[in-house]
């Protein structure tokens, strides 16, 4: 982990007009909903900040040539990659928590707030999902140039949802839906914490989540270590 690299990525994202506009848009939309709904969380958008902040986290540095200058310094490639992942995950987690807090406050001010416990649990789930999706995006970014990681992620997500849709047409095709769900689970590792309030989170779910995140990061490091950084090597 390298604090200089983490800080640099967050600053860079904060100074990118396109990314800031997208963050603001996806921030305001759920808050507007919060005025009418019990909480501000939207089920299918909880890792959108990861995609906005993380797109091209490694690939853009490779394409622009910035990575060459950076790796001429005493920085290990693994250190660089983990720092990029952490920066994206931390930035997204901050936005997720802020959104949940503001959503709750707005809903409370309008007198239709839900219980604080479940809202807090869902916010924590969102944070864990942010870290998981950031790891998946880091994996894609380590082998795709530019914003190719985002394109691959979106296409893979679409593929997973298509499978789920197709699988739901006939009972005999249930296995297709299962494939889609498993694939989606790999793309957006989640940990269901709602059980933490009751019987407790299953060990299998915890291991599954952390193994997916670890595997993605490990593969990303291996791929980045094998990459040759020269326009002559393309």
């Amino acid at each position, binding site marked *: 982990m390298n604090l200089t*690299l983490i800080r*640099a990525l967050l600053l860079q994202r904060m100074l990118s007009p396109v990314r800031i506009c997208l963050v603001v848009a996806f921030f305001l939309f759920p808050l507007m909903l919060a005025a009418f709904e019990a909480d501000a969380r939207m089920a299918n958008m909880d890792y959108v900040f990861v995609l906005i902040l993380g797109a091209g986290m490694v690939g853009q540095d490779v394409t622009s040539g*910035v990575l*060459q200058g950076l*790796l*001429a*310094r005493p920085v290990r490639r693994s250190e660089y990659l983990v720092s990029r992942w952490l920066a994206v995950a931390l930035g997204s987690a901050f936005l997720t928590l802020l959104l949940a807090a503001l959503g709750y406050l707005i809903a409370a001010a309008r007198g239709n707030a839900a219980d604080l416990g479940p809202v807090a649990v869902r916010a924590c789930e969102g944070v864990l999902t942010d870290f998981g999706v950031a790891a998946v995006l880091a994996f894609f970014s380590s082998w795709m140039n530019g914003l190719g990681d985002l394109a691959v992620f979106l296409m893979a997500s679409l593929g997973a949802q298509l499978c789920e849709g197709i699988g739901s047409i006939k009972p005999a095709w249930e296995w297709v839906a299962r494939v889609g769900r498993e694939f989606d689970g790999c793309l957006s590792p989640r940990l269901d914490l709602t059980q933490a309030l009751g019987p407790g989170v299953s060990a299998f779910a915890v291991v599954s989540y952390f193994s997916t995140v670890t595997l993605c990061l490990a593969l990303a490091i291996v791929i980045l270590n094998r990459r040759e950084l*020269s326009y*002559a090597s*393309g």
Partner: protein
Amino acid sequence: MSPAAAGDAPDGILVESLTKTFRAGQVRALDRVSLAIVPGEVFGVIGPNGAGKTTLLGCLLGFLRPDAGRIAIGGRAPDDLAVRAATGYLPERLSLDRWMTGLDYLRYQHALARLPAATRSADAAQALAQVGLEPAAGRRRIRRYSRGMLQRLGLAQALLGRPRYLFLDEPVSGVDPEGVLLFRRLLSELKGSGVTVVLNSHQLEQVERVCDRVAFVRQGQVDSIETLAAGAELSRVLRVRVAAGAPLPGEALAAAARDAGAELVSAGAAQASFQVPGDAAAARLLRALIAAGIPVVEATAEQGRLERLFMEAAGGRGAAAPTRAPGAPPDRPAGSPGEPGGAP
């Protein structure tokens, strides 16, 4: 100094039988390259487009993995963190974080180089001044920099932390004449302080002025290594101009050339050209001409030493192109791997 001796010496750079191919071995960018760069030396790498110069630099910096051979920088592998901590690098295709200000960028690089935080701002300001950039320029965002200013900033970041090894890829590309003079002065100072510099450039005049030795790279191989330091004997054509209207007897010119160990190439109105084998012969020729009563007013080298050597080498060995394995696809029309404009 032998390659082994240079590599074993502290701070020396040793390259042994370095081979690097691209496209699954179809393009041989470097073919058994061996070099020994002694500590404190300014070593130039020149050659035509596609010769493999940038690939060589990429291997020296640990960006590319050689297929075979060995590189030792101060006895360590090029991607060793200790080597990187002692390395400054100015890439040819300068890609800076354009959203930062110049000073922010230097502070950022300072932090990445793991230099002491206590001196960060002072070091950044000093590096900026070292390359002739005003403090106001340091407060400006890099995206507003001109090409020459970018190059200066790139040089400033390469100089942070007083590196022991400096790798410069086309360092004066796009730099104004004042910047070129500054670059020469900086390089002279660095050389005086024992920094080992590897300079890759197409600007032969600059290479000739600053380098101690230069390697001619062609088709992925080191064709020759020339010594350019003072006292080196390099053949060139000397053009001598005489006072207007003065007689220019051919026999006297030829005799003076013979006495000096030179050769009369041509004689025309108010000027003559001589082939001289080196500095000493040039001095003898001028003395002989003046002794013969010829009113010499100017003597200039027709080409730079290096330019002449380069042209001789290029003329004698055909067109430049990377060596290809049998059955390999043809080159793209412009450029080739390892050089600007080359294959992606």
